[in-house]
């Protein structure tokens, strides 16, 4: 029997295998940020261990960093101490770091791909659940906890129990106005926040093939929101074209060898998935969330559901609770929901294509007076590219706030937060209670919906903008 893509990548990284034990897998790339690593470095020091492969490790500052006044010391002293700890650890252990102010600084999941460090067939880990993003290249990429960060630093391996595999087949063509974000929000609504537990998801089908690398990253990024540690897409010409010429892309003979290998990285015709979900892209409309987990989403043309419409008692209770927290009434049209804040950014939708489509809608328009819009590029390089294309000028002319790169309001670890009771349309990945600031309310949306919503002040699609 043939193998799935995930199985091929897994098998190519087995260092040690024995019955009754997890497989020991080699890790090709370890990305590290300031929040989930200080205790891991402390662990190394306590045990007098070194970083085994500094050449396969990369540090960047993203979660804590401010998105304005980045030329000044970080005002929040606790954040500053954590960022300093990362810088000191880089120095002590001889690791590459992209600090605030560096041209290569940015959100860890934007930085890896833009440097060409993320390549097909690799194993990629990071102490961050959105590491699944890198699966868009046909890499096996997943988030780990701090104990595992320490383990990878010390050994460049991880003991892991094999995942099951699930095919997410997205057939047909996406209608105009629907995006990769709408595909993944629809997938999560369909299989729920726990549906992917224990699985690696492989996204396939015509609609996935048609996506750019950035769209594919948006999809794989939110695999964790469906409970799956990893999501993957088989590499193809789109992938190779994206990687070619990037700073860490292979060159000359290595490029030819890499391409020959990468072309073998697809699920064999006779391979079997443990589960399969099929979605028709041609029926997808923009999706938005109404509740407090990413599975609580509907079409923007829909209404806030009645908790009584859920047959599962757990889902019913969760919906009741979510409506109280979100201050929403069942039956309200999603398009009638007014927001105070629009956040465009994050490792889900903070790349150049996201900024381009939003700027195209905001050009010569104004952000509603009742709304503050914050635009945060995913990396310094994305910001520079945006400058080159004149996008910040468009955002600023519309009345939006153009910031420096970082995770920002996606999780509100820096000063970019919602105030209690504020409601946001956000291109990020989590609508958990308080995620964007204590008491804040989040509706997850695509960049297109974010831009249109900024103009009208209520959840909207671009076709509403005259």
């Amino acid at each position: 029997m043939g193998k799935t893509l995930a199985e091929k990548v897994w098998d190519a990284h087995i260092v040690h295998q024995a019955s009754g034990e997890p497989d020991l897998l080699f890790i090709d790339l370890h990305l590290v940020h300031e929040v989930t690593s200080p205790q891991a470095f402390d662990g190394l020091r306590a045990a007098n261990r070194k970083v085994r492969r500094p050449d396969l490790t990369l540090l960047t500052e993203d979660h804590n960093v401010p998105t304005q006044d980045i030329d000044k010391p970080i005002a929040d002293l606790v954040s500053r101490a954590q960022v300093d700890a990362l810088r000191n650890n880089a120095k002590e252990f001889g690791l590459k770091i992209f600090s605030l102010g560096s041209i290569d600084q940015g959100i860890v999941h934007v930085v890896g791909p833009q440097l060409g460090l993320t390549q097909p067939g690799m194993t990629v880990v990071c102490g961050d659940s959105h590491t699944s993003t890198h699966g868009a290249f046909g890499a096996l990429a997943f988030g780990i906890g701090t104990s595992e960060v320490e383990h990878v630093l010390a050994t460049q391996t991880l003991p892991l129990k094999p995942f099951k595999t699930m095919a997410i087949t997205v057939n047909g063509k996406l209608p105009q106005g629907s995006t990769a974000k709408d595909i993944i929000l629809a997938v999560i609504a369909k299989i729920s926040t726990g549906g992917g537990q224990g699985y690696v998801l492989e996204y396939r089908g015509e609609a996935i093939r048609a996506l750019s690398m950035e769209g594919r990253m948006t999809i794989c990024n939110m695999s964790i929101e469906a409970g799956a540690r990893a999501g993957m897409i088989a590499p193809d010409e789109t992938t190779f074209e994206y990687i070619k010429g990037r700073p860490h892309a292979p060159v000359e003979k290595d490029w030819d060898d890499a391409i020959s290998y990468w072309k073998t990285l697809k699920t064999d015709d006779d391979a079997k998935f443990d589960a399969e979900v099929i979605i028709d892209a041609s029926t997808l409309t923009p999706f938005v969330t109404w509740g407090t987990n990413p599975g609580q989403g509907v079409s923007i043309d829909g209404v806030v559901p009645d908790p009584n419409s859920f047959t599962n008692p757990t889902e019913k209770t969760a919906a009741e609770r979510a409506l109280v927290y979100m201050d929403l009434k069942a039956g309200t049209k999603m398009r009638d929901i007014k927001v105070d804040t629009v956040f465009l950014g994050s490792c889900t939708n903070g790349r150049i294509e996201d900024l381009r489509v939003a700027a195209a809608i905001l050009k010569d328009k104004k952000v509603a007076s009742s709304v503050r819009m914050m635009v945060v590029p995913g990396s310094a390089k994305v910001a520079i590219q945006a400058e080159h294309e004149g996008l910040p000028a468009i955002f600023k002319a519309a009345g939006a706030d153009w910031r420096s790169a970082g995770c920002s309001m996606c999780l509100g670890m820096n000063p970019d937060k919602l105030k209690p009771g504020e409601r946001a349309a956000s291109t990020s990945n989590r609508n958990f209670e308080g995620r964007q600031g204590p008491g804040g309310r989040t509706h997850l949306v695509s960049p297109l919906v974010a831009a249109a919503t900024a103009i009208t002040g209520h959840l909207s699609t671009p076709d509403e903008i005259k």
Partner: protein
Amino acid sequence: MEKFVTHTGSALPLRRSNVDTDQIIPAEYLKRITRHGFEDALFKAWREDPEFVLNKPEYKNATVLVAGPEFGTGSSREHAVWALMDYGFKVVLSSRYADIFRGNSGKAGLLTAEVSQDIIDKIWSLVEKQPNTQITVDLEKKQVTAGDIVAQFQIDDYVRWRLMEGLDDIGLTLRHESKITEFEKSRPSFKPATL
């Protein structure tokens, strides 16, 4: 890591599903660079409500958290496990866990025992009526006992062994160091390096 064989203590009934790690510990508290001292941040937002179950004096000394399905979803922050342990929890009971949270628990020494939602419902009812009920979680027998309720729980066999022996993963892996070195020699030259 301390060995875990069996634990007896009172329980906290948390009647909520999809308890994500942002609820267990908000991002604001992840700025600390220590591995301990997170007990004040546990369920921070919910704790502001005096009616929240964690604030009730009858559950003050609970060491077994009994939660709804999809416990620990979202962020990979191991701080969620540390906050639970720092507060005094030794065991979580739920019918479904998020993968990363469950993995982190096993590494840090928090037992995540999986039982059916039906058992969770029964334990909730019992400890809501009698908050001082002592619950025993026996890792050797893979069994949870609460009053008349006796149930087997699921846990990965390897994780169970590691918890019972109190073993350090890095030490276990380094037994295979020569294999790691061998593997490294076979890696193709086109794979990227950061330095």
